[in-house]
């Protein structure tokens, strides 16, 4: 068994782990980052392509939360985590939510102003900007539909930097915080999965891990650490805690943004290389409308959701783009590490109210797309009628049922909530796991609820805040 010693061990290298590694390494701490997935050149594959699915996503992008209905979800599993595969949309945590969470979960020093200062720094660190020039057609359709209906909409900023020619580069963790961490002396160990934490009383003294080497050889590693930050995401973080015997409020309370989609045909070609930047905020934060990845594979999958013959629907696919309606859910789920299984069991229970909100969401999305000029709408409902005019939308209210809806998500949060109310949280106001002096969580698991927007900005601001508290203490 190989051994390794470090002052700070960071498990996971996504938005939380990347930020943690950079902050602590630049503060002079000796940092080692362990990442379960491989180190993949950020430019190696086209965004959202099949190759990217295979190399950068957990379970080939086909993970599943069991329930009625099952909910498909996707998360990154590579150096940089989900920041390598997401759309890069950036949205600060709304002030009202920060204030609400602080009050409901008794989170210390969690003010909108304080988080705003961290968000400022995150934006400077990453580079957050809007698209130079006019939006692509897929995004302009959202703007056009919203304008016609009088709905609020906004072009979201993204974690992109643009060169003089307007070419954008997504500022993923592997391009930003992780190189900074390495520059400050941190070590990154890819292809290394932590099996469990090694505990000694109220301290964690290290971890047991397995590292896969090129050629398939597996090396067992015992890593000793003075401090451990678990940043493996809202599914794997509680699973690791559970595997290590830490179960207090770890894994329950999973939150997400359940999402339904429409494949919309327009009378003209639509771009397919990027994700639309516009979002409809008229119903936010309870309901958000936006655009999805729409490569040919995504368009075909969305069209197949209705169960109608695909070949006919796919004809002229260049004119089709995929859009979504995502809700803040009152339901919740669980992550459960089962002995003997490498992957945790994930469940999620949608409430009847959630289903109703999803139905409302898909009808609103349909209204918007028709107003934008779409000529044909294919909903993610098995047997859901294809709609060509406003009068057809009402049929979706009745057809979006538990057995017929195709629901997915990409945002999972809240499995180790933060706050001083021990009955409802798994970690204190700064991510320290209850009952453990040197074990912290610093990722999406800490968020008390799904924020209704892409959570990357909130995750990074909170992670930076928690690092400062750690350094100060």
């Amino acid at each position, binding site marked *: 068994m190989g051994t390794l010693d470090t002052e700070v061990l960071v498990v996971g290298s996504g938005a939380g782990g990347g930020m943690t590694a950079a902050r602590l390494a630049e503060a002079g701490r000796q940092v080692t980052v362990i990442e379960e997935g491989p180190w993949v050149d950020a430019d190696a594959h086209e965004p959202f392509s099949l190759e990217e699915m295979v190399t950068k996503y957990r379970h080939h992008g086909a993970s599943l939360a069991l329930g009625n209905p099952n909910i498909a979800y996707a998360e990154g599993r590579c150096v940089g985590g989900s920041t390598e595969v997401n759309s890069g949309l950036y949205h600060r945590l709304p002030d009202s939510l920060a204030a609400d969470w602080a009050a409901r979960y008794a989170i210390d020093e969690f003010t909108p102003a304080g988080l705003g200062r961290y968000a400022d720094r995150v934006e400077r660190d990453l580079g957050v900007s809007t698209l130079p020039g006019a939006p692509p057609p897929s995004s302009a359709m959202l703007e056009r539909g919203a304008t016609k209906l009088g709905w609020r909409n906004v072009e979201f900023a993204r974690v992109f930097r643009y060169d003089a020619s307007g070419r954008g580069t997504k500022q993923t963790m592997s391009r930003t915080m992780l190189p900074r961490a390495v520059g400050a002396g941190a070590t990154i160990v890819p292809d290394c999965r932590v099996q469990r934490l090694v505990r000694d009383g109220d301290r964690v003294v290290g971890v047991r891990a397995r590292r896969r080497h090129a050629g398939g050889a597996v090396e067992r590693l015992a890593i000793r650490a003075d401090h451990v930050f678990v940043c493996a995401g809202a599914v794997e973080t509680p699973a690791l805690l559970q595997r290590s015997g830490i179960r207090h409020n770890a894994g329950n309370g999973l939150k997400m943004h359940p999402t339904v989609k429409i494949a919309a045909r327009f009378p003209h070609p639509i771009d397919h290389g990027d994700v639309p930047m516009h979002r409809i905020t008229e119903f936010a934060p309870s309901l958000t409308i936006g655009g999805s990845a729409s490569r040919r594979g995504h368009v075909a*999958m969305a069209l197949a959701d209705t169960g109608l013959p695909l070949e006919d629907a796919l004809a002229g696919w260049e004119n089709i783009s995929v859009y979504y309606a995502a809700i803040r859910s009152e339901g919740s789920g669980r992550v459960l590490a089962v002995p003997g299984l490498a992957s945790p069991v994930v469940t999620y229970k949608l409430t009847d109210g959630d289903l109703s909100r999803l139905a409302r969401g898909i009808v609103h999305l349909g209204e918007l797309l028709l107003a934008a000029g779409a000529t044909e709408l294919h909903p993610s409902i098995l047997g859901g009628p294809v709609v060509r005019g406003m009068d057809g939308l009402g049929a979706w209210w009745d057809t979006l049922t538990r*057995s017929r809806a195709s629901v997915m998500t990409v945002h999972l949060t809240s499995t180790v909530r933060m706050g001083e109310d021990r009955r409802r949280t798994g970690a204190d106001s700064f991510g320290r796991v209850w009952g453990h002096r040197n074990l912290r969580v610093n990722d999406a698991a800490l968020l008390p609820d799904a924020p209704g927007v892409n959570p990357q900005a909130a995750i990074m601001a909170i992670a930076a805040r928690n690092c400062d508290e750690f350094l100060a203490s």
Partner: protein
Amino acid sequence: MLSFERQVVAALVGSDDPAVRSSVEAFVDGSLRDKPEHLRLGVAGESVVLGTYVALLRALGRLDGDEALRALLRSWENGRIGVVRQYVRAMQALVVFAENELAPAPDRAA
């Protein structure tokens, strides 16, 4: 990948191009291998049960060829049994995504 899963993929792939068919099968195989154990076990269990049923139909002469299997899958997809419906939809999603991402340039333009 189990025998019946290979049959399902073969029935669902639309392309006649052997290279595409082979690549789609490889992608589905990889996806199934990469699934969490409990989900893989569930899919495998369904494959065994449904595969046995299909084998029985074939033995009785009531099912012949890919087109007949495709029709049977369509009926399952729209049927009343949730787990069977989800099985078909899950396999179809993998096939549809892979086939359309792997389609050669001339097909894409079609």
